[in-house]
C-alpha cells in the first residue's frame, strides 16, 4: 500500500490498471491493423468521452496522474504483474519514465545464435581469447576481407567488443550524447563515422551557406525524430504514453524468438509480378528479412 498525499493506492488498483492496459493493448492492435495512427479520434464522437476499452480511455486516466504517482504505479505493476509480456515490459518502463531508453522496456538486446563466443569456441586455436585472421580456416573465400568485416574496430583482432553493438543503459548524459551523435552522423549505418559523413552533416546544417554553423543550425540538425519528438522538443511522458497506446512506438507483438520456426507468410512483390512464400526458401537458402518503411 502506498500513501501519497491524501490518496492511498492499493495493489488492486495496480491490477485494475493492468486489466485496462490489456484491453488498450488489444485496441492498439486493432488500430495497428487499420493502419491509422491518429490519436485524436474519439470512438464515440461525443466530445471527451472515449470509446470503451480504447487507448484513449487509458490515456486519459494515466495522464491525470502526477509524475511521482505515475512512477509509483509503474513500480507497483513491476511488482504485481508477474510474467508480463514484452509489451507489458514497455508499459511498465513508460510509467517509470524509462520508456524511450535504449536497453529499457522492450528495447532489448538482439538475439543471435552466432556471436563472439561461437567464434571463439571454434577458432581460437592458441586459446588467447582473441581471433586473428590466420586462425580462420583457409577454406573461407576472401578470408582477409571477411575478417575485416568482422573486425569492427579494425585492430586486427576479433574480441567481444567487435560483436557487441547493443546499447546498454544510456544513463549518463555523455553516453546519451555519444549514442545520439553517432546515430545522427552514421547515415549509412555502417557503424563507422567517415569524414564524408561529418562533412555532409556540416553542409546540411549550414542552411544559409555561411561557412559556419550557428547555435540554431546545430539545434535544428540534432533532430533525432523518434528520440526528440516533433519540433525538436524532448517528448513528454504523456506523448510517450499516447504513442505507445497507439502502437506508434512499436508493434505490440513480440515476434518469433531465436531458434523458433519463422512464421510463414505469402506476400506480393512491389511490382506485383509474383508472390513470395517464405517457406519455399526452407531447405534451400537462408533468408534475411528487412522490415521498415520510408518515413
Amino acid at each position, binding site marked *: 500500500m502506498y500513501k501519497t498525499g491524501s490518496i492511498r493506492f492499493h495493489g488492486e488498483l495496480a491490477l485494475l490498471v493492468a486489466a485496462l492496459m490489456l484491453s488498450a493493448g488489444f485496441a492498439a492492435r486493432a488500430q495497428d491493423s487499420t*493502419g491509422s495512427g491518429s490519436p485524436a479520434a474519439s470512438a464515440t464522437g461525443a466530445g471527451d468521452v472515449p470509446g470503451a476499452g480504447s487507448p484513449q480511455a487509458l490515456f486519459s486516466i494515466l495522464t491525470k496522474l502526477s509524475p511521482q504517482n505515475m512512477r509509483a504505479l509503474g513500480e507497483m505493476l513491476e511488482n504485481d504483474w508477474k510474467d508480463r509480456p514484452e509489451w507489458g515490459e514497455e508499459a511498465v518502463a513508460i510509467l517509470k519514465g524509462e520508456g524511450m531508453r535504449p536497453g529499457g522496456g522492450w528495447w532489448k*538486446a538482439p538475439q543471435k*545464435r552466432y556471436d563472439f563466443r561461437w567464434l571463439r569456441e571454434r577458432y581460437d586455436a592458441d586459446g588467447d581469447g582473441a581471433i586473428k585472421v590466420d586462425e580462420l580456416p583457409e577454406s573461407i573465400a576472401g578470408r582477409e576481407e571477411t575478417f575485416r568485416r568482422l573486425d569492427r574496430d579494425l585492430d586486427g583482432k576479433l574480441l567481444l567488443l567487435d560483436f557487441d553493438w547493443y546499447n546498454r543503459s544510456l544513463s549518463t548524459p555523455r553516453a546519451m550524447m555519444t549514442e545520439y551523435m553517432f546515430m545522427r552522423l552514421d547515415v549509412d549505418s555502417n*557503424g563507422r563515422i567517415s569524414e564524408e559523413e561529418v562533412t555532409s552533416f556540416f553542409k546540411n546544417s549550414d542552411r544559409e551557406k555561411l561557412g559556419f554553423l550557428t547555435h540554431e543550425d546545430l539545434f535544428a540538425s540534432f533532430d533525432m525524430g*523518434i528520440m526528440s519528438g516533433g519540433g525538436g522538443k524532448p517528448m513528454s511522458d504523456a506523448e510517450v504514453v499516447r504513442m505507445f497506446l497507439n502502437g506508434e512506438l512499436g508493434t505490440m507483438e513480440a515476434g518469433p524468438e531465436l531458434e523458433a520456426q519463422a512464421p510463414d*507468410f505469402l506476400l506480393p512483390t*512491389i511490382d506485383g509480378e509474383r508472390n513470395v512464400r517464405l517457406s519455399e526458401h526452407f531447405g534451400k*537458402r537462408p533468408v*534475411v528479412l528487412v*522490415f521498415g518503411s520510408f518515413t
Partner: protein
Amino acid sequence: MEKLYQRYKDRVDFYAVYIREAHPSDGWKADFNERFNIRFEQPKTIGDRKQIASTCGTILGLSMPMLVDEMDDRVNRLYSGFPDRLYLIDRDGKVAYKGGRGPFGYKPRELEQTIIMMLMDDQ
C-alpha cells in the same frame, strides 16, 4: 543494407518487407522528414502503399526484392517489425538472428557479422 545485399545475395535471399509508415504526415511527424520534404500520409490502399514503397526503394537505391505487407499489417505483426527490424532465418526456417527493436536495435553491421558466421557454419 544495399551493400550487404550486393555482397551476400549469391548465398542468402534478401527481402525488404515494406510495412506501415513510421512517421506519416497525418500521424506523428518527424522533423527530419519534413526538412527533406518527405511527406506521405499513411497509405489507405495496398496500391498506395506499393507506390510509396517503390519511391522509397528508388530514393534509397535499394535493389533487393521488396515485398509489401497487407493493409492489415499481418506480417508486421507476425514479426514485430515496426518501425524497423532485421531477421536472419537459417536454411531450415529457424530464426538465427532477431534484431532489437528499431530504431535503436537496427544494426546492419551486426547482421552482417551474423551472416558471415552462419556461412562459416555451413562449410
